[in-house]
């Protein structure tokens, strides 16, 4: 049976994405497990998320349509690259951002580790503040969400984000 992570990567490729870099997170470890061992993806495991953003910009200049994977803590690291490189220069990318520290479905406090609680609580507001269009990963709407995000990305020339909650891409 095809794993959720395999299906996700196939969908990304179907939507035109053909360059992959980033920093891992346990919430999408199923994806990086594939990227790490299959040379087809030419995955570059970056040392920092902002460096991954720069690498993605370079790949875009070279003709690719890049994906940058990161934990939501890495979104903080990436903030200046996002603002003062991608957004002002019109450099598109899909950011796949995990959602550590997400509250429960009824707003219950997250039981995640302390370092994730604040970013987890403000993640959606943070993306809105930074003017990054985003969708929250849901298997049933993933294809349509990726189509919409990718269209927005091409129209604006700026990054968009797919937020990945726990349990979606660990396998």
């Amino acid at each position, binding site marked *: 049976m095809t794993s959720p992570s395999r299906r996700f990567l196939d969908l990304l490729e179907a939507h035109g994405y053909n360059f992959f870099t980033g920093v891992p997170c346990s919430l999408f470890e199923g994806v990086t497990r594939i990227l790490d061992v299959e040379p087809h993806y030419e995955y570059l495991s970056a*040392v920092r998320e902002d460096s991954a953003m720069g*690498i993605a910009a*370079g790949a875009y*200049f070279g*003709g690719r349509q890049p994906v940058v994977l990161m934990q939501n803590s890495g979104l903080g690291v990436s903030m200046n690259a996002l603002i003062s*490189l991608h957004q*002002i220069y*019109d450099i598109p990318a899909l950011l796949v951002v995990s959602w550590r520290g997400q509250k429960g479905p009824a707003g219950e406090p997250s039981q995640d580790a302390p370092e994730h609680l604040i970013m987890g609580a403000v993640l959606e507001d943070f993306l809105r503040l930074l003017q990054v269009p985003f969708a929250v990963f849901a298997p049933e709407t993933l294809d349509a969400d990726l189509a919409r995000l990718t269209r927005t990305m091409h129209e604006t*020339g700026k990054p968009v984000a797919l937020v990945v909650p726990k349990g979606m891409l660990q396998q």
Partner: protein
Amino acid sequence: MKRAAAIAAVASTLGPECALVACNGMIGRELFTHGDRDSQFYMIGSMGLASSIGLGLALVQRSRRVVVFDGDGNVLMNLGTLGSIAASGVTNFYHVVFDNAAHGSTGDQRTISDKVPIEQVAKAAGYRRVVRVGDPAGLQAALAGFFVEPGPAMLLVEVERGNQPGIKRVEPEPPELTARFRRAMTPSA
């Protein structure tokens, strides 16, 4: 050696088939003032990331020589990327660092590159070749073969502090810099 003169000397050896990515601050502005080309990208913000941008381009266009003009402050801000460049084995990657041991664009506040030899860090990270030069004759000698032999390679050029008069700001707006650089890199697209 004045930085603007060193930048002009290195840039003059590069043809338009090379990609040239310049870091933010005076280095990009001095390159722009020396001579502008569609195959040159000027990073005006995102300090520290010029080498990452060059790496991404070098990875996807292995047959194109990619040259990064960097400063000591920029390299020190993202030292880990030296490891990424070395580990990626990008033989088409050439890193030229203009080192004045200072943040030249903000008033020459000192960095730490007088105590931390950046080219030795690159060597330890796994760059194939590194060379440090301190005067025009040394620079000319180093340039003779630097961009011919495979990389990743670093040429560190010691330059004086202080800025030259008459240095322009990069004139095209950032989206135009992106569009023309990408067109230059992907002529058939």
